[in-house]
């Protein structure tokens, strides 16, 4: 007889009032296996995780751990049984040490005092056994880089003697080397026979780290496949439920004359950046977090003071001191940070779409907003970009990430700009929405717009851009065109701190 899998769910179903969030899902996870769990937003990934983690109780179906049926009343039951979840948002207490965070509710005591030396020893054991030798248990969490915090969170999860580890979008705020480090930790845990469920939107990571892939759509299992031999197209097709010819899409345009040119742009962070953008062109900027991509875009639209250098728009030198000046000149910037810098939560979709436009006098007469005209224009843009919402009066807060992103794009495009600077427009959104955005970017260039597309994902930069700049530490490290645009090149140049302006074709 085959030995029982480490974790198994049988016909697991969860019904919330009015929706079936998870429908008859059977999943298995073996010891030492990394199982990728993928699906669009709303496919049921989080619900499945929460059922396994004891946050919710299933409506129907069973959960088995090493062949034994288990019933979790709360997350603590699951933890005690050896199932730990690391959520996307970190739950560490910033001003405490690494060791205190790991053992926060189980601090070893001597009398009524904390036994510090034992605490640090226990923490060091946990960290070392999972391959995190470099982390000092005494370090204050607030001082650590985000990647290390993520490792601490994993160490904390393992400290409950976890046999099953659920990782929910663990790389959403990590940079390249940090992701590599996380993968090293995961492989180490694999060797210790820990079973890992890895949830991610990043298919390249799924392909790199998992052994098998479990695909969910609309709460149902649509496929379970070994990672080896699977293709990205096949996986995406399963996730979105239709055939995808090309995930990435370059459109049909020939770059025209230069519309935007920066020369020697410098501020406290940017160092002597040269940058060019042509009509009917998609320029990709790739760099790690903190490479200066966001700073460059912000400097060009006047959202960051520039110390040196000049900016030419349509051949004329301009000085933009405020994003409003840029919009008036037909140049818009759409921030990556949807919640923090782009949208107004608490306001309806239509007002969010028109905020930029009313600043330059669209839908306005003598300072008064022409609400009727404004709302219907916003409505037609929302429809054009396929924003899924019952009406444009809905608070943007309630939309999914992908739909919020489409609102951000509508907000930029409704001003009918010539130059469009998109900062990570696909960050944290599901595959279906990503495909629509790739298509939209190509369409904009086909219509003669000049588009900048910043991304942290190599395949989409390589797949969508006509020309690529790589950045590192506030400098442009390379400009790539034609066949030189490939993943190896882009990665190579973004990791180096070289001289500016190196071109390859």
């Amino acid at each position: 007889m085959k030995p029982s899998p480490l974790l198994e769910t049988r016909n697991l179903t969860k019904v919330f009032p009015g929706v079936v969030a998870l429908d008859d899902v059977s999943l298995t996870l073996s010891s030492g296996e990394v199982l990728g769990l993928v699906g669009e937003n709303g496919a049921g990934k989080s619900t499945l995780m929460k059922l396994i983690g004891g946050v919710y109780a299933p409506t129907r179906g069973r959960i088995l751990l090493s062949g034994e049926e288990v019933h979790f009343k709360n997350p603590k039951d699951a933890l005690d049984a050896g199932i730990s979840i690391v959520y996307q948002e970190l739950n560490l207490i910033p001003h405490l040490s690494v060791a205190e965070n790991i053992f926060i509710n189980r601090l070893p005591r001597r009398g009524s005092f904390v036994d510090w030396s034992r605490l640090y020893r226990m923490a060091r054991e946990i960290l070392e056994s999972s391959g995190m030798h470099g982390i000092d248990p005494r370090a204050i969490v607030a001082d650590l880089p985000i990647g290390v915090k993520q490792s601490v969170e994993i160490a904390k999860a393992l400290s409950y003697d976890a046999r099953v580890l659920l990782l929910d979008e663990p790389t959403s705020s990590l940079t390249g080397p940090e992701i590599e480090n996380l993968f090293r930790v995961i492989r180490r845990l694999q060797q210790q026979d820990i079973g890992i469920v890895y949830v991610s939107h990043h298919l390249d990571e799924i392909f790199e780290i998992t052994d098998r892939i479990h695909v969910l759509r609309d709460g149902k299992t649509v496929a379970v496949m070994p990672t080896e031999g699977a293709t990205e197209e096949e996986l995406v097709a399963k996730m979105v439920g239709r055939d995808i010819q090309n995930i990435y899409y370059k459109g049909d345009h020939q770059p025209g004359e230069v519309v935007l040119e920066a020369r020697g742009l410098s501020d406290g962070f940017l160092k002597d950046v040269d940058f060019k953008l042509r009509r009917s062109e998609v320029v990709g900027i790739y760099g790690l977090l903190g490479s200066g991509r966001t700073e460059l875009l912000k400097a060009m639209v006047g959202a960051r003071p520039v110390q040196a250098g000049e900016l030419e728009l349509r051949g004329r030198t301009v000085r933009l001191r405020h994003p409003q000046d840029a919009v008036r000149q037909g140049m818009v910037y759409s921030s990556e940070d949807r919640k923090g810098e782009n949208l107004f939560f608490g306001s309806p979709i239509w007002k969010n779409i028109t905020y930029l436009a009313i600043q330059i006098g669209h839908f306005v007469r003598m300072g008064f907003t022409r609400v009727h005209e404004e709302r219907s224009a916003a409505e037609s843009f929302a429809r054009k970009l396929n924003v899924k919402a019952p009406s444009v009066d809905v608070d943007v807060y309630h939309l999914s990430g992908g739909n919020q992103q489409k609102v951000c794009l509508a907000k930029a495009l409704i001003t009918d700009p010539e130059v469009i600077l998109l900062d990570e427009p696909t960050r944290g959104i599901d595959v279906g929405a990503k495909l629509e955005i790739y298509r939209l970017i190509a369409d904009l260039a086909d219509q003669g717009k000049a588009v900048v597309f910043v991304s942290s994902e190599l395949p989409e930069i390589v797949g969508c851009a006509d020309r690529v700049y790589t950045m590192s530490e506030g400098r442009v490290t390379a400009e790539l065109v034609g066949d030189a645009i490939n993943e190896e090149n882009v990665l190579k140049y973004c990791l180096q701190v070289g001289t500016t302006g190196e071109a390859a074709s």
Partner: protein
Amino acid sequence: MKLKSLLSSSEFIVFLGLLAVGAFFAVTSPVFLTKFNLLNILLQSSIQGIIAIGMTFVILTAGIDLSVGSVVALSGVIMALMLHGGVPVWAVILINLLFGVAIGLFHGFSITKIGMAPFIVTLATMAMARGLTMVFSDGKTIFDFPASFEFFGAGTIGPVSVAVVIFLLYAFVAEVVLRSTVLGRNIYAVGSNIKAAALSGIRTHWILYFVYVVSGISCAIAGLVLTGRLGAAMPTAAMGYELDAIAAVIIGGASLMGGKGTIIGTIIGVLLIGVINNGMNLLNVPPFWQSFLKGAVIFLAVMIDSLKNRPSEV
């Protein structure tokens, strides 16, 4: 849908509270519902109302203006001294309004260019303005102004006080600005998310200057009305008005976090406080208890609104 959102709005709930409190006093006091008394409540509320309108603009941007009471008093003393110095009434009023603008510009500058917290800046102004009031007046009440000056506080147009007319006109303009202009939309935007506002092309510093200038002008207008009505400029005038104004704005459904609130709500809040003050006087509630009961009503009003939007702990 429209009706439902109206019925569940903060303003409507406070309005029901106002009706309930009014009904209570109507039953318990025979005088309460008389035309004279109702006009009196409106008159009593007009000065608070003018200040609270300015405060609404500030609170919408997630700011606060603690200086309003002191600035009202300082405005009164400055006008009194100018009048006694022989400055014509029209010039006194104009200079007074410019004084309000100057206070607002000072606050705007300190907050945007220096980066000070609104609470601290206006707390400092509150003390400085009150101090100057004492210095200029030598701590004494100043009387005896021309009738054309007192008209703005004590005069009437038909059966209605000029003060009430000023209040309602001012409220109307403020409501239109906030509801229907780009400027109004931008004020809400700055309070809702100042970073997003700047990247949406809104000149956020201008907006912040503007709201503090509105608050300063509101104080100058309130100073004009108050001094006219009392026929005297007192260095201790308008003590504690900042707290009543903030309470009225918050009762009216605004959020101290910014981005939420309306002039209509503020007016209902002002009237609620006015009705409670008036009713307690009619019922001869001892003054010490009046203060307690007023505080309790403010607590209840804000509590009801908070319960609706209660965030979960995790």
